[in-house]
């Protein structure tokens, strides 16, 4: 899965328009990135990538790119 596809999945999880985010978007600038969206990200990570995501890891994410890097890492 390429970077744009991962970003699109993240946009789906947040229920925001496709292609509205980029790797450099700060998570703090996304109003939809609330506690429910974080739970949705945890589910996405587990279901689509088979990766367990902890609250601590989520707190370390600053940009959309950080999430992409985590999800796409081997």
């Amino acid at each position: 899965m390429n970077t744009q596809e991962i970003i699109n999945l993240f946009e789906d999880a947040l229920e925001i328009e496709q292609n509205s985010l980029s790797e450099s978007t700060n998570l703090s600038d996304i109003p939809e990135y609330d506690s429910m969206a974080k739970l949705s990200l945890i589910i996405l990570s587990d279901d689509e990538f088979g990766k367990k995501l902890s609250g601590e890891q989520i707190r370390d994410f600053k940009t959309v790119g950080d999430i992409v890097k985590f999800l796409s890492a081997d």
Partner: protein
Amino acid sequence: MYAWRCDRLVWAVDAGDASALLDYVGWNDQLAGVFITHAHYDHIMGLNELAAAFPDCLFYASDYAIAGIRSAKMNLSFYHEMPFEYHGNQCLTMPAQGVELPNGLGVVYGLPTPGHNEGALTFRFHQHFFTGDSFIPGIPVVTKLKSGNKQQNVETLLALRSSFQNDAQIHPGHGPQMMAHDLRDEHFPDLLKRPLR
């Protein structure tokens, strides 16, 4: 969670907290049925305890919710690191014609209200509407989680709004209860571009 008692039989809507319901059920009473609005963990976590205490009690839910009751991933408890599943045989698909309570009490109907969660039901008993998380007055409905659907949510809210008569009482899954005649546009934030008729 809500419960009511009649002739030593107790009926409840949702079962997130077994201890509160067990406290409500008197020593000589029977828990006869629990109506499950949807299978998110905070609405079902008490089922194992209730099933053990009342082996004849039936848990009424949609087929999707029954699958969720049996899957920690579907009911989201897995992601909260407190996996919960119930695998007993007391779950029953909510009948389309409703469930008739004994002694002429009336019928509990299950109205499909997807949006927050597929298979979500609002239960209507006379003019009492138990909406679960499909409608919480004043709070936008969460549709970001598994099987949530924004469009279905709008359709559900429109359908609910038109089915509430003035004397209806709304019992949401969280927050205060309300009378339908007190509902205003702002209680349906997801419909704000669609004013009340």
